[in-house]
């Protein structure tokens, strides 16, 4: 299927990336080139094949459910563009 300008705008919004209106046709064209390339996958017979979840077969390790880390508020906030009173600050979310 072919991606039009509206679909490109919808994807950009889903990805939370602002794309100027005039840039959308070119973006849609790039998507189409990439998706056209990906279409080849439809040639493969995948009947009965499991989707890969882990490339190296292994069980995830388990550990005691206890707190092992924490109390690092200053370090965690150190790189924030806007931190106030021990919190990350963002534009008003709730009216």
């Amino acid at each position, binding site marked *: 299927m072919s*991606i039009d300008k509206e679909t*490109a705008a919808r*994807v*950009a*919004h*889903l*990805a*939370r*990336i*602002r*794309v100027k209106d005039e840039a959308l046709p070119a*973006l849609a064209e*790039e*998507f189409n*080139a*990439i*998706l056209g*390339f*990906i*279409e*080849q*996958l*439809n*040639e*493969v017979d*995948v009947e009965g*094949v*499991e*989707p*890969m*979840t*882990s*490339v*190296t077969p*292994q069980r*995830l*390790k388990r*550990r005691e459910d206890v707190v092992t880390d924490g109390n*690092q508020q200053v*370090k*965690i906030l*150190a*790189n*924030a*563009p*806007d931190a106030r009173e021990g919190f*990350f600050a*963002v*534009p*008003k*979310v709730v009216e």
Partner: protein
Amino acid sequence: MTDLNKLTIAEARDLLHKGDVTAVELTESCLSAIEGSNALNAFVHNTPEISREQAKAADARLKSGDAPAMCGIPLGIKDLFCTKGVPSQAGSAILEGFKPEYESTITQQLWDNGAVMLGKLNMDEFAMGSSNETSTYGDVVNPWRRGNDDAPLTPGGSSGGSAAAVAADLCLGATGTDTGGSIRQPAAFTGITGIKPTYGRCSRWGVVAFASSLDQAGPMTKSVRDAAIMLEAMAGHDPLDSTSADLPVPNFEAALTGDIKGKKIGIPKEYRMDGMPEEISKLWEDGTAMLKDAGAEIVDISLPHTKYALPAYYVIAPAEASSNLARYDGVRYGHRATLAAGEGIDDMYEKTRAEGFGHEVQRRVMVGTYVLSAGFYDAYYNRARRVRTLIKRDFEQVFAEGVDAILTPATPSAAFGLGEMADADPVQMYLNDVFTVTVNLAGLPGITVPAGLDKQGLPLGLQLIGRPWEEGDLLNVAYALEQAAGFVSKPSKWW
């Protein structure tokens, strides 16, 4: 001694341990080489104070007589690795000013082994690129040129800064990461050695994530022996990375006997692509003959799903990237866009990400968002993961038939000119990884070794692919190939 920066890790280690040179001398030699290398744009954040301090500590440790192999060895670190208190931007404007409060497991292990950090190395933004042209720091320039032609060439990507720095003797070795070929392709373009270990061999903790099921770090070095020494220091189980393998790390250097008699080397017919340049196919044939002469048994093999590796990769990698890069939202670290009056939090996300991400990163995040979106998840993402299972199965079948390693070209061409691919559609650039990307999808170890020069005097590499967890064996085959190829060329210094 002069030109200490030109030593290999193994040579420097031996001199350091004999007391013939000091880590401080070695480090100073690299620091002055870096100072004169601005034209290459490989080092982007220099850390001379840290280097000098670490070098002094290494000398003390060497004197005490209890120093590991990497003690006193000056290294460059790809910008993708978080290094405490030192800018770590993943080549992106969105992480401008970010100084991690923690150290990646791999770099911590290197410092624990006494290695010296010279600084951070340029790379494609978030490791997305094959030419180091998507970096916020600007292009890296390959120290190699086409004869007397001064047109700047790409060092490859995404570990382009690492490759250029090692090839130009700015450091003795460098860390790289490889999601679809980002260690092996730049290594081939710059005439050095690079190994991507088995997925899970090196911890991903503290390495900025691109596509978590594919990302693996590894060393980029001047020789196979150096790769063995440095990989051993980087590898090992890490409880902070749930996909890190709890397996002992062997002494990889001890595996380098050069004896490959009776080893079965597979030559996959699907890698003989239409329109493959003659120089590449000749190099491949020469490499095959070298391994045969060294006593290996050459067998023709088939990896039937090879053709589908790149398309599967360009679903899986962007899908994982769109999820991983969701964290760059202007809240916790890095860039935040300035908002106009009345703009809310969604405007903040959208403007921040539009300003902070470069074009290629935006494109891949959006492709990933699309293939994961409702209605397309099965058709694209799940299908690609099924194809990935088949690609891995191809390799498993070949290994089950007794093949020890697989020999292929590393890249479809030698290094190309910076800007030469600017007008090509994105898929053309993606084809650079056609020989390397299967290895990431199957989680296998792969290494490239420089094996010759093309007509224009540029290096060409061959790739060897090994069985999972058998990096020692793989390094040994690579060592035999290195010995036989006898590649000793270096770029002549113009920078």
